[in-house]
Every structure is written in structure tokens, then in C-alpha cells.
């Protein structure tokens, strides 16, 4: 029976506190966590409570249990707003949510939470040593959310190739993307795919709306080239534009 087991079953608080500290310092966070878990409630309102709670939260973080570390850091921040560790706790709390953020194609509630926390950290501690890291994380999460939005729009474009009315949705979704995310790294992609959707829609339109839609497709093309004259999609965009112009030429001939 090890010392750890003995202390774990012991009712007394002090040995647990000491041993937890020892494990924590040695980097055995799993055992430290078990001990802290037992004594945290006992230290609420006591001077050591601050220390215990921080370490407790951090053991979860080190164990990569980010749900609980996020929650425990949040509790710490609420309970000890004047602590010296507040900056680190805020950062680790935000980072916990960052780690929880799932891949772009799933619900992004945790991403939003992480972004809010990171943003508030960046605003509150502009001189922090974690500033750079926070900024990088925030950027990554922002582009993840953008990726989500553009992938959904691209799916509409894909579905629309077989079910033309969905192309209208694709165009709206690309428009929304462009206006919602002004500085996005996916902006160029969105502008290009908008041409694809608009062109398919125009080419498959009924006669009475065709001309108007062809012109709209051409407008999308012009927009892309105006913002990104050297775009990587140039060749594909040019091909689409040629088709549109060809169709439009028939209108000017017939009239």
C-alpha cells in the first residue's frame, strides 16, 4: 500500500495538501488531481484556497481534460478576481476552450466561447507574454469559422449543379460570406465560387431571366478580377466568363 493510497483514504486534509503539492511539482498531475479534488471544497474561503484551486484547475489542463479545466479556471477567475495568477488563469481558461474547439464541420459553440475569451484576454493583457500565442489561436479559430461558412456555401454550389434552384442559395451564401468576413483568407475562393454558381444558374435559366442572370455572372467575374487581378482561379474564371460572354453575345445579335 503506497503512501498515495494511504493519504487518499485518510480523512485529514493537511497530508493531502502536502502530497498533492509534491505530485504537482513532480509533474504527476493525475494523482495530484485526485487529491486536489478531495480537498478543494475544504479550502473554500480559506487563504490557501486560491492556490489549491489554481493547481486543481491546472491539473485538469495538464491532463488534457479541457472541459473541466475550462470550467475550473472559470470558477477560479470568479472566486479570486484579484489573484496574482489571474492572467495565467484567464489565458489557460481560454486555451482550454481553444483545445475543445472541434473540426470546422461540427457545432462551433466552443469555438465561439474560446474566441470571446481569447479576445477578452487580448484586450485586457496586451503586454502579456501569452499575447502572441493568443493572437495566433484567435486567428486560427476565426479562419476555422470562416472555413465552416464557405464549405457550406460550396456544398450548395455542388448540390446546385444537379438541382438548379439551390444555386440561388449558393449565391446568397457566398454573398453572406463575403459581407460577413471582410478580411478572410477565403475571400478569393468565395468570389471565384460565386462566379461558378452564378454561371451555372444563368446558363440553366428560363429564357425570361437568362439575360439578367448572365449579366450578374459577368459582374461576379469582374469583382473577382478587380480585387485579385492575379488570382489563382484566373484560368477557370476566364473559361466561365467566356461561356457567359458567348451567351450574352446572342442577345446583342438578336436585338
Amino acid at each position, binding site marked *: 500500500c503506497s503512501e498515495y493510497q494511504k493519504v487518499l483514504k485518510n480523512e485529514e486534509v493537511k497530508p493531502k495538501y502536502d502530497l498533492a503539492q509534491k505530485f504537482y511539482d513532480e509533474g504527476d498531475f493525475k494523482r495530484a488531481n485526485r487529491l486536489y479534488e478531495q480537498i478543494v471544497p475544504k479550502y*473554500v*474561503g*480559506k*487563504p490557501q*484556497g486560491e492556490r489549491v484551486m489554481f493547481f486543481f484547475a491546472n491539473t485538469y489542463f495538464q491532463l488534457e481534460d479541457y472541459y473541466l479545466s475550462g470550467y475550473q479556471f472559470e470558477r477560479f477567475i470568479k472566486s479570486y*478576481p*484579484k489573484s496574482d495568477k489571474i492572467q495565467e488563469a484567464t489565458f489557460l481558461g481560454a486555451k482550454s476552450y481553444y483545445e475543445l474547439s*472541434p473540426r*470546422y*464541420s*461540427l*457545432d*462551433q*459553440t466552443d469555438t465561439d466561447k474560446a474566441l470571446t475569451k481569447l479576445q477578452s484576454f487580448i484586450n485586457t493583457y496586451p503586454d502579456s507574454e501569452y499575447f502572441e500565442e493568443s493572437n495566433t489561436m484567435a486567428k486560427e479559430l476565426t479562419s476555422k469559422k470562416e472555413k*465552416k461558412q464557405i*464549405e*457550406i456555401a460550396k*456544398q*450548395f454550389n*455542388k*448540390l446546385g*449543379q*444537379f*438541382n438548379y*434552384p*439551390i444555386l*440561388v*442559395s449558393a*449565391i*446568397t*451564401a457566398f454573398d*453572406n460570406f463575403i459581407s460577413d468576413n471582410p478580411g478572410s483568407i477565403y475571400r478569393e475562393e468565395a468570389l471565384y465560387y460565386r462566379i461558378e454558381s452564378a454561371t451555372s444558374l444563368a446558363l440553366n435559366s428560363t429564357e425570361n431571366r437568362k439575360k439578367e442572370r448572365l449579366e450578374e455572372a459577368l459582374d461576379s467575374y469582374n469583382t473577382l478580377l478587380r480585387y485579385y487581378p492575379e488570382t489563382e482561379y484566373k484560368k477557370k474564371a476566364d473559361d466561365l466568363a467566356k461561356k457567359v460572354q458567348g451567351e450574352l453575345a446572342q442577345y446583342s445579335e438578336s436585338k
Partner: protein
Amino acid sequence: QETSFEDGKKYILGGLTVTGLQSYNEQTVVTYTGLRVGQPITIPGDEISAVIKKLWSLELFSNVDMFYTKIEGDKIFLELNITERPTLSKVTVFGVKKRKVEDIINDTDLKKGKKITESLIANTKNYLQNKYKKQGYLNAKVTIATAADTTGTNTQSMVVNVKKGDKVKIRDIVFEGNEKLSDKRLAKSLKNTKKKKLYRFWKKSKYIEDDYKEDLSSLVDAYAERGYRDARILSDTFVKVNDKNIDLKITVEEGDKYYFGDINFVGNSVYTDRQLSQVLGIRKGATYNGVLLKERIADDSKPDGQDLTNLYQNNGYLFSSINPVEVSAVNDTINFEIRIIEGKETFLNHVTVTGNDKTNDHVVFRELRTRPGQRYSKDNIVRSIRELGQLGFFDAEQIVPDIINPDPNAGTVDINYSLVEAGSSQIELQGGFGGGGFIGTLGLSFSNFSLKNIFNGEAYKPVPMGDGQTMALRLQASRTFRVYSLNFSEPWLGGKKPVRFNLSLSRTQQFATSFDDRGRIDRDPDRGFSITGISTGLAKRVQWPDDYFTISHSLSYQLYQFDDFNNGLFNFGNGSSNSLSYTLGISRSSQGPNRIFPLSGSNFEVTAKFTPPYSLFRGKDFKQIREDIDEATDRLFEIGPNSTSPSEQIEFVELSDELERLEEERFKLLEFYKIKFKGDWYTQLVGKLVLRTNAELGFLGSYNNDIGDVPFERFFVGGDGLGNFTLDGRDIIQLRGYENSSLTPFSTNPITGNQERDGGTIYNKFSLELRYPLTLKPSASIYALSFLEAGNAFNNFNEYNPFELKRSAGVGIRIFMPAFGLLGIDFGYGFDSDATPGAVGPNGWETHFIIGQQF
């Protein structure tokens, strides 16, 4: 005195003492205030008031005061005086049965250690009084007293005294002033308030004030529906007859009967008057019916009703409003103007989804009927919810569409679908004894699989999920047989169109066995037979005739191989047989919204399965083969297996070999066609009571009479309908109240003369099932059912008689848990005799266990 915050002076906090403590530690309270000795503090200032507010919000103290005790230079010493609220030590409840006491304590949350406040006492009292009134104890009285308890510091014990009194029933309801509608009619309109009657046991006579008030307004509605729109209740009196009985006296004034006059539409530009009045469906001269008018304008009880509001709401006019206004009345005729504000045509802007923690966006978005840039339509939202529920990946009861950012000026609106993931994978691992040895089964079924992540180690949590694919793997093995099967399906092949792709591979091996001298089963590895099958299919949802339709194609091939093994399927034990068939299926499925417990809609399926008609172009004389077979069979029958003459024995063996050769010739390439129809209708009767009506029939035929019906693909009717280990593509048809497959007709084996059950080639079945859900929670859905069924199977079309049905009735229960699938038990009584030769009289009771069968 009044001091303004602006006059606040800055001090350094020199000390903080807490007085009035009874059970708390001083340090705890100080820590809680958040104040620290040595910190700067402004007094008066908002720090102090924040502290007081914070302490109050704990609801632990009945008084919180803050004073300063002294000031030394810039140091200030504060005193916090608090009065702790007493805590509850013990609750005693009188006047209630012992076993109910715990319920009461749980409901009211009167736990030990709870702080006693005035509101706690008042709330508890009101809660209990109302609780008993709702049960019909009108005279219930509850008193609550507290007294100091000296066993703990600052604790109080509580005594709750309940006097239920007698249950009060309504002896009589007297109506006065009614001439046009009878007393009976009016009494009927009071839905929840009934006078006591001996024979009515399903609705107790109770007086509950809230229900009664509601009933009175439905009484007025009863008049309004019949044209008496001025009808009103002059008075309603409550007469106490004695402690147990009351009378209700309702006096009404009926007024005159009115009729609808002209109905004009104002403000409509999208729809013509004609279109609108068609939907409204009220003609001039009809009896005035305010309730109907309201329903036709907006039916609150049916979200997808055919009313004017939905006409607009389903076609893009989210911001429309429709108001009927009485413009004039001539004698008993009322003229209406229906004023419509159409608002701006509304388009969806952002469509988002939350709550999909496992399922990828593309799986959700491809099912949504609401997309950005589309016109707003309530109908499409309802459809989207249905489609998402049908996926089975989300809890169908918890799909919530949130309308956000409606902008009447821009004509745009956002929708967010909030989802809750539901587990839908099943794992089956079982072992058991059967067929003379140990049988082990491993079954894995993942219904939201992600094939592209199959080599991505990180995606294994515990299996790659989220792309909506299905992967099922099943291995079953014993000493005598092995079955392997793998099934994969992708509902949107290529992600562009709803084309379901399905691939399944299977291999069944059966080994010949013998018993060794110790009576154990011994496997003979050189003898046996196997079936290897591959089948692939495509199913496509189509837009025409409507978009509930699916057309499916599938191609399957089976190879039967025999090595000196006769398993009874064929009359030969060596050689092989091939079956290549194509199946065309057309189905229409609109049942919903819940996959496990559909409330409405229907499900039809017609399938035609056929093989190429090889005999037409194989150039073989099957007539000759047939005749040879018949001849050999007749001779074999004549000789019999037990003949003693040596020459006959030799002839018997020779003929048997000849027959095997002929039989293999006959069934080298299997040919048949099979047509099946199945239809299910779900009708919501009352509330969640649902009637499922089912009809099905099937027919198996052959192209060439000389080859005859294949021994495969037959119909076996009767019993629980569970498809167990079968080799021959048989259809097992459920018909409860009879033993498994017991309604399948017998036929005579031409050689042995024995009666054999080798499956019907034609069957029909009808059933009615009433279902009622006990709970539809995602963790477990449970429903009870009762059924009436009738059906039968026949050996050939000449014997077929659709009216010669075997009937049964019974009851049962189903439990669906995501991890286990469907479990259930049915008790059925068969009214007729089963197909066993010589059986007479009713079959009687049968118990059926239903496991894993989906719906």
C-alpha cells in the same frame, strides 16, 4: 442619513470584523466579501454596496449591515453585522399517508439545511394546497409552523399540517336560460368539468377552478360555433351541498342566431379574392361560426393546417397579418372584411445549425429544405425537421428551429436549427449454445460512419463518425457453420444527389457433420456447402410524382456450391448453382416525424425481383428434362428406399444419381421473378394514439413451367417475423398469434411422400395496430400496442384465395434504446388453425419476443 456617493472619501481598509455570526467562520465571510485589509476603499462608495448586495444574494442572511468602527488617519475599520437565517433541521408532515410524505418533501425541496425564509413557507403552503385542489380536495387546508430547534445552532424544525378534507364531487350541473342548445349538449362542452355518474369511470368528477374557467369559455364557443355569437354566461354559481358535493349553476343568455354575409378581402395583392375565399371556405348565408372563422384564418391547433395565415406563411410572407373585421350587420347577417397586411416578401438569409457535435455539416445541410436566398416557408421548416428526424442521428423530439433576426424592412430572416445528437450505433456480441455447439456472434453496426476517416487514427473516438454512412459487420461462427457479412451504405453517393449506394458481401459456409463414437459433433472438412454473395444497389429519391418517392435498383449474385452435401434446398448434393437477379423497387415514405414512433404519413413499397429468363435462349429442352425427372421420380417412389431386391437397390442408386444430374441441370442457372407490395399507414386518432394499418402481398413465379418454381425466395408466414439465419433468400412474414412459419402451406415430396414445409409462393397479410407511446425520450422510447392481423400463404396461384385468412389479435409492448435497438414482447391469440395438416380449432395464445427488428 443621506450621503451621496460623490462625497465618498478614499481610505485604506484597516480592518474588517464580522459580528452576529452563529455557524459561519469569520474568515469565510471576509473572504467572501472580496475585501482585503490594506486595499483602498471609497466610503461611501459602490464597493460597500456591492459587498452588501453580494451577501444578500447568497440568501443566507436575513440582515446585513456595515458600519465603520473607527477611523485612524486614512485607515478605516469596518464592522459587518449579519444575522444568519435559520436552517431547517427537521420536517414533520401530518395528515398524509406515510409513503406520500417523502414525495411531498421531494416536491417542495424541504431538505435539511435549507434556509428558512418567508417565501419558502408561503410557496410550500401554496404548492400543497393547489396540489390537493387539483386532485379534487377543494377544502384542503395546509398550515406550516416553525419552531426553534435546540439541537443545532440556529436551526428550526418545521411542522406541515395537511387537512385534506373530503374529495368534493360535482353532484349536478344546472343550466338556465338555454333554449336552443340542450342541457346535454352544453354539459358535453364542459370538457373537464363533469357531474358525477356511476358509469363514467375514465374521467372523474372533479372541480378544478382553472379547468372550469376554461370550460366556461368552451361553452361559449359551443354557442359561437352554431351562430349564437352574442351568447354569454350571465352568471355561474357554486353551491355547496355538503362537504362532499357541490352543484354548479350556469345561467346563459343565448341571443340570436347569426349568418355570414359578404366577406370581402382588403389588402391582398399576391392572391386573388377568389383564391382566398376558396381557402377560407365560408360562403355567404352560412350559419355564423366565429370559431370556424378563426380557424380558417389561423388554426392554432394545427401548425400545417390549410388556413389563410399558412397560405401566406408558406409562400414567403412571414410578416403578413390577417384580421377579420365586422364592418356591418343587417338584421341577423354580418358582413366581414378580411384585412390583410401582406408585408414584404421574406427571404431566408443565414441558415445555420448548432448542436451537431458528431455529425458533419454537409450531412445536415443536404437534408434541409430551407436554404439561404429561398423564400420563407413554414411548410419547408416542418419538412426540414421531419427529414432531420428521419436521419436517426438526432433526437427527433428535440429539433428546434429558431427564427432569428427577422427584418420586415429588408424582408429577410435567419433560421438556426438546434439539434441534439442521439447515439445510433449498435454493438452485438453474444455467445450461446445451439445446433450442437458453441455459437459466437460479433455484430457491429455504425449508422453514422465516416469511411474516409477509416485510416485516420485521430478519428477513432471510438469509431470514425459523422458522414452519415452505415457500416455493418457481422461474424457468426460455430463448429458447423460460419457466416460473414459486410454491409456498407452511403446515402449521398458523391455528395451531389440523394443517391444511396449500397454494397454488401456475404459468405456462408456449412460443414457436413457426423457424430463421433462419444456422441460429439464431428466436422467433415471435405464435405459441405457454401453460398457466396455480392449485392450492390443504388436508390434515388426522385422529385416526381412527389419528392417522397424513391426508386431503387439492385443487382445481386449468389453462388451456391455443394461438395457431397445435401442440405434440402436442392435435390442434388454435388455441383453448383448460380443466381443473378435484378431488383427494381419503388417506394414512397412520408411517415414521421419520429422514426421509432411515426405519428402520421405512410410508407409504400413495391419491389420486383427477377432473373434473366435463361431458358428462353439456352436452347435446352427443359420439357425433356422435366419428363425425365418425373419419370425417375415416379420410379424411385415405386421402388422406395427400403427395397430388398438387389437389382432394385442398384437401380435406385443409379436413378438417384441420374436425378441429381437432371436437377442440377434444371437449377444450374436459377430463374424466377418475385413481386412484393407492402404498405403502412399511420393515422393519429386522439392525441398520441396512433393507428398503423398495414397490407402486404407477394408472389413468386417462374418463366418456364417445366423448370417450375425455385426452391428459394419463398414466403414463410406466421410468428414474430424475425429473420434468423437463412440461406435461401426467404421472406419471413410476421403474423402474430401463430407459431413461426406455421401458416406456410405443406407440400408433398414426390419421392418420399412426406409432407414438407418448403415455403409458399403467394401470400397476403393485413394488420391493424393501435399504438400509444408511454415515453419518447431519446434514452428510451416505449410504446404499447394492440393488434388485429389476418393473412395466409399458398402453394400456388390456383390455390390462392384472398378471403381464406388466418386471423389473430393481441397486445404487446416495444422498447427502443439506441444501444440495443428494438426490444419487445407480444401476446397474440390465433383464432384459426395453422397450416399443419390435420390441425383443427383455434391456435390459441402465442408469445413472441421481438428483438432488433426495426418497425
